């Protein structure tokens, strides 16, 4: 028999709901309001205005930062998915008794500290870093390569390193419903390696791959730490500028407008990707387990 008090279970969600409304939704709204207020030094004042957004769009420097964010975020997301796909495939269908240990290594690297990874790449790519010293050691180069660090390339490599484990796990989970026997059937029906990928594997992982792509893109494009530590002057990105507005220059309204313009960009990308999935009907591909 059903207990009469139907409100019961919902009450349990109240603490979390109140907490998130107070410390997540309300602060975001306040942050959003800042972008429409008139900025004064280290504060905002009342007349509502769209000038902040106008400033953001009209400032030339921002165009370069936006391009950097777009390129770095796009490349990081693209390469994360590209490298993760064969890894997830191998884990699902070929790993055998190695699956446990490889999954362990991937999850363990996922938990490795974010700043430590950035630091590690500085040690790898620097003028005296492991790669330059290694190449010098085997005599490939005489002079250290200077183009490895303090640019967009270094930022992208570190971001791929940071997000790759996550993408592998997402795609691995996405492949779960696709039984190995399906691949065998496709093979028996005469589908070659390429055909099996194109017509069986890729349609199934399309939706998780797009969501992983979006996740990596958004987190990379808005990152303010990696570009600051590895990007040098040429690799600076939008997130850095937002951070500087709040921590350095004190131009809150301008920083807020920049952040929300960036968020609008993310939403547009999300809509485009969702539309692409729908148009190609890949959002509906499901395999019975």
């Amino acid at each position, binding site marked *: 028999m059903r*207990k009469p008090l139907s*409100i*019961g*279970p*919902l*009450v*349990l*969600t109240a*603490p*979390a*709901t109140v*907490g*998130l*409304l107070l*410390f*997540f*939704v309300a*602060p*975001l709204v306040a942050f959003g309001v*800042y972008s429409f207020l008139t900025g004064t030094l280290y504060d905002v004042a009342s007349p509502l205005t769209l000038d902040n957004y106008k400033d953001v769009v009209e400032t030339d420097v921002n165009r370069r930062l936006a391009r950097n964010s777009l390129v770095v975020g796009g490349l990081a997301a693209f390469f994360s998915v590209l490298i993760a796909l064969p*890894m997830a495939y*191998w884990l699902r*269908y*070929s790993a*055998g008794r190695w699956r446990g240990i*490889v999954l362990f*290594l*991937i*999850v363990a*690297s996922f*938990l*490795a*500290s*974010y*700043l*430590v990874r950035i*630091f*590690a790449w500085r*040690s*790898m790519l*620097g003028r005296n870093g*492991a790669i330059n010293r290694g190449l010098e050691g085997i005599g490939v180069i005489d002079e250290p390569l200077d183009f490895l660090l303090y640019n967009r390339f270094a930022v992208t490599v570190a971001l791929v*390193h940071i997000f*790759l484990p996550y993408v592998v796990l997402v795609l691995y989970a996405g492949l779960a419903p696709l*039984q*190995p*026997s399906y*691949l*065998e059937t496709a093979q028996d029906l005469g589908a070659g390696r390429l055909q099996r990928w194109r017509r069986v594997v890729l349609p199934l992982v399309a939706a998780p791959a797009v969501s992983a792509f979006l996740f990596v893109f*958004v987190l990379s494009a*808005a*990152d*303010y*730490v990696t570009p600051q*530590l590895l990007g040098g002057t040429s690799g600076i990105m939008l997130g850095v500028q937002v951070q500087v507005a*709040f*921590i350095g220059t004190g131009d809150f309204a301008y920083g*807020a407008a920049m*952040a929300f313009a960036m*968020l609008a960009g993310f939403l547009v990308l999300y809509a485009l990707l969702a539309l692409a999935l729908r148009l190609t009907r890949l959002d509906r591909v499901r395999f019975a387990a």
Partner: protein
Amino acid sequence: MTGTRRSPATGAFTIAGLVFLWAPLLLVALFSFHSTGSLTFPFEGFSTRWYDEVFSNEVISTAAKNSLIVATSTALITVLLGTLAAYGLTRTSSRLRGPLSLLFFLPITLPGLFIGIALLVAFSRVEWSLSLVTVTIAHLVYVFPFFFLVARAALERLDPALEETAADLGAGRWTVFRRVTLPQVWPVLVGAAGLAFALSFDEFVITFFVIGPDSTLPLYIWSGLRRTIDPSINAISTLLLAFTMLLFVVTFLLTTWGERRRRGRGLTEDPLVLTGPAEGTT
């Protein structure tokens, strides 16, 4: 079970991927034992001098203590709020289910930059001074969705018949939860709590905005990275790696042990048998 397919190409890719993931981290660990201040090859001999330096540095131990305090509080509060929310949401048929699920998931979709600045703005508006308390609040917002998603998935997998039968036999809500639901899901909750702790312990992006005068370990590493070459950063990083791995292994073992024990008992005993008298009957 089906056999494994041979796929040398993806196998080679996986090995390359693992090297890519681990080589930089192992390099950091190797040079944390370097006898000179150089962070790069050639390796000139082992020494633990950087570890001695780390362990005798009071700024670092204070930062580590702060990190532990924040991560422990975050994990404990998250377990409480997250379990309640996930249990409530999976057991209700209210129309608020959809909107609430969205709210509980939403913080994951926003980059830390947004959460950090939004909270900085909010805290300054209500004139709360920044401290470890504000850091913990920020971490709760950040960590909550991760815990919630795992807990909800575990609770949804349960057979509702077990809880209904217990309730029909006269067990009150709390008894049903404690004696039927919790024994089935606690291993997963422990794993998710470990994840919450690890996420909080390592959090930098949001923390940077809401920390005030205190310091945490990630914040210390950040300031070290901004300074010139500081070899003790290698030692801290390696300790941090070792700590996270240890935490992961312990959580993993605890979770699998719990799962195995639960399954084992499920096979030998009727899971419907409630040991001890049912309390809190209505």
